[in-house]
């Protein structure tokens, strides 16, 4: 871009090939074909010259001092170390653990479990039965209603039994009739 000269136009059918030719990305056959065309076409020669002049300049970038790269490298390595530490913090514990500590930890864990089961056996009810005072009032109210409905069901059943007895008076003896009378008065 130092020389921002007008760009040459290429023959339309060769334009894409010329771009690839510039980058050295054409096949052998295409290279020969493009080379033959270039030898007789000033427009395409000018187009290729423009590519050779302009494209490398576009890629040119500012040179950075070595101190920048040193700093960059140190920072990146430090960040990698931090990331590694975060991901595998538990690994730092492994070297500190002796080999005999693994069965020792297992034995201690088993002992705690057994002691817990033995001494906590009689107190399981404290975990399963909730104290009444902790039951919400709404649930207690529902419980009273349930008892009420149960007693209503019982009375209804008794009424049905009495009705059945009244429908079969002939099947009953006078003795049993007295019993029924006593039951009815009761």
């Amino acid at each position, binding site marked *: 871009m*130092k020389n921002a*000269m007008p*760009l040459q136009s290429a023959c339309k059918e060769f334009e894409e090939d010329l771009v690839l030719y510039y980058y050295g990305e054409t096949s052998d056959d295409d290279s020969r074909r493009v080379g033959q065309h270039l030898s007789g076409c000033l427009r395409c020669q000018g187009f290729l010259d*423009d590519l050779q002049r302009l494209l490398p300049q576009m890629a040119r970038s500012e040179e950075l001092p070595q101190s920048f790269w040193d700093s*960059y490298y140190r920072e*990146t390595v430090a960040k990698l170390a931090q990331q590694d530490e975060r991901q595998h913090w538990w690994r730092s514990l492994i070297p500190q653990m002796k080999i005999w500590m693994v069965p020792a930890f297992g034995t201690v864990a088993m002992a705690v479990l057994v002691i817990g089961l033995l001494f906590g056996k009689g107190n399981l009810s404290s975990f399963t039965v909730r104290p009444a005072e902790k039951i919400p009032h709404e649930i207690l109210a529902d419980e009273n209603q349930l008892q009420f409905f149960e007693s209503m069901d019982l009375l209804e059943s008794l009424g049905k039994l009495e009705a059945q007895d009244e429908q079969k008076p002939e099947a009953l003896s006078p003795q049993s009739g007295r019993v029924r009378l006593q039951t009815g008065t009761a």
Partner: protein
Amino acid sequence: MTSPDELRDEQLVELCRQGQRHYFDVLVRRYMEKAFRIAFDFTRNTETAKDLSQDAFLRAFANINQFDGRSSFYTWFYRIVVNLCLDHARRRNRVAWESLDRITEEAGEHKELADSTFAPDQQAIASEAKRRVDHTLETMPNKQRTAFLLRNHQGLSIADVAKVMKTTEGTVRVYLHRAVAALRQSLLETV
């Protein structure tokens, strides 16, 4: 005994997988400049390019076990860098590459553009050409820009660009031609 710097990328990756993290530092040293240059080509900002390229190294290291070795390490790694840059560009969602003030300011820093041996009118044309090229690169479709930057600025072969972009070589050729045509058109408008 072989020095770590002499080991191939794949050997270093394998050693990292085995838990020898410090071998990744060799890969950092080997690719830091290229990673930074790609990020800078996309962002045109030194600090952002530094952050993005360093982030690419962190991601590459975190996912080193996912590298299957079907492609080379550098195409795999370039893909991470390019994806980060494109994500960054999408997040910013801006049309202009840089503000006009910044371009004017930087025009003086780019010696190849504002060479003192050229007359002021030629310098002005060169600055304008640079601005147009930058703007065209910024506003062209991401795939064209990626193909162009990787081939022209990074010197990757079309085959490698295709691997980085996970597309065919034919498609990359088309992207490359369109990008060059767009850049050429922007320069034609300058003069």
